């Protein structure tokens, strides 16, 4: 096994990175893969609560980096999905406790034992972002169909281009098909036109996301919810499957989304 490292980042805060990591991780683990999530948001730990693992934290990533525990000891196993692990962020330390080369080392250590390593990047373009992208094989940029989120996504894409990273893929989260139809929300076409990177996921606005995070049970564990389905589809695309985009609006939107069919 050699894990692929996926980093989820965004530029702007609050657009759904942590939600995305938790859901894709669960979806991949449901498919029988060994998955470890790393919370890269030191000082603002969050992935633990979204995954419902907050009560089981003993060690964190800074403990690993500073040698207070073995990597294995800081990996919390999700009891619902025994092949899913979390390495939590430190809550009390400052961001500089971990460096990009620490992240590369940690991922290299994990790679042989895992299928997927998912890194939840903090917002912004500072140290935590640098750490999070250091080991990435593939970067997913989450945005919302909204001006400042798209602008910040463009900034991050520009930075990645300058670093000559592989071209990132885009997840458009919190799309509201009714608003799009009314002409009051940027459409998938619009966002693609502006950013011009491959779209790997379109996730609708869905109140079940909030319910799920209240319960600490990512939505992709549930069969029905639209957003959960959208996240599961992203996981399948990461696995190399060709999956058509969800028919978020059975009339108009579908025809327009259709042309962004996932290409490898």
């Amino acid at each position, binding site marked *: 096994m050699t894990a692929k490292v996926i980093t989820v980042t965004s530029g702007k805060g609050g657009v759904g990175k942590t939600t995305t990591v938790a859901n894709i991780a669960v979806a991949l683990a449901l498919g029988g893969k060994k998955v470890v999530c790393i919370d890269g948001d030191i000082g603002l730990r969050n992935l633990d609560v979204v995954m419902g693992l907050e009560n089981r934290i003993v060690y964190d990533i800074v403990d690993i980096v500073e040698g207070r525990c073995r990597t294995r000891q800081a990996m919390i196993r999700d009891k619902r999905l025994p092949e899913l692990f979390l390495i939590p962020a430190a809550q009390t330390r400052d961001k500089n406790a971990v460096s990009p080369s620490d992240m590369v080392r940690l991922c290299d250590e994990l790679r042989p034992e895992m299928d997927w390593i998912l890194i939840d990047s903090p917002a912004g373009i500072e140290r935590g972002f640098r750490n999070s992208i250091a080991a990435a094989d593939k970067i997913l940029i989450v945005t919302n169909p909204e001006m400042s989120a798209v602008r910040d996504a463009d900034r991050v*894409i520009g930075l990645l281009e300058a670093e000559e990273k592989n071209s990132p893929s885009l997840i458009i989260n919190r799309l509201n098909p009714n608003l*799009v139809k009314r*002409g009051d929300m*940027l459409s998938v076409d619009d966002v693609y036109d502006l*950013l011009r990177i491959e779209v790997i996921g379109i996730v609708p606005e869905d109140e079940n996301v909030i319910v799920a995070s209240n319960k600490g049970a990512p939505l992709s564990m549930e069969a029905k919810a639209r957003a959960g389905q959208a996240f599961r589809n992203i996981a399948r695309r990461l696995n190399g499957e060709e999956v058509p985009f969800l028919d978020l609006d059975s009339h108009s939107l579908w025809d327009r989304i259709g042309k962004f069919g996932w290409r490898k």
Partner: protein
Amino acid sequence: MNFLERFFGNKSAKSAKERLQLVLIHDRTDLNPLVLEALKDDLIAAISKHIDIDPASVRIEVEHEGRSQRLIADIPLRVTSRRRMG
């Protein structure tokens, strides 16, 4: 959305996209409208030293192809050149 907006297709998403297009050009290239204007004036001055052009017809804009952009200058030449007249 009122009747007029509906009629003229003046939707907020459309203006968001148009505004973003301009903002992104600026963010990506450090080119803002003021810089473009200054560049155009300098171009006109430089070209006018050699050939006779109409400053009012000169256009300069940024074109996109994927994520890359290029600066396009459109400088029409006057129909009658001095040489022919002379």
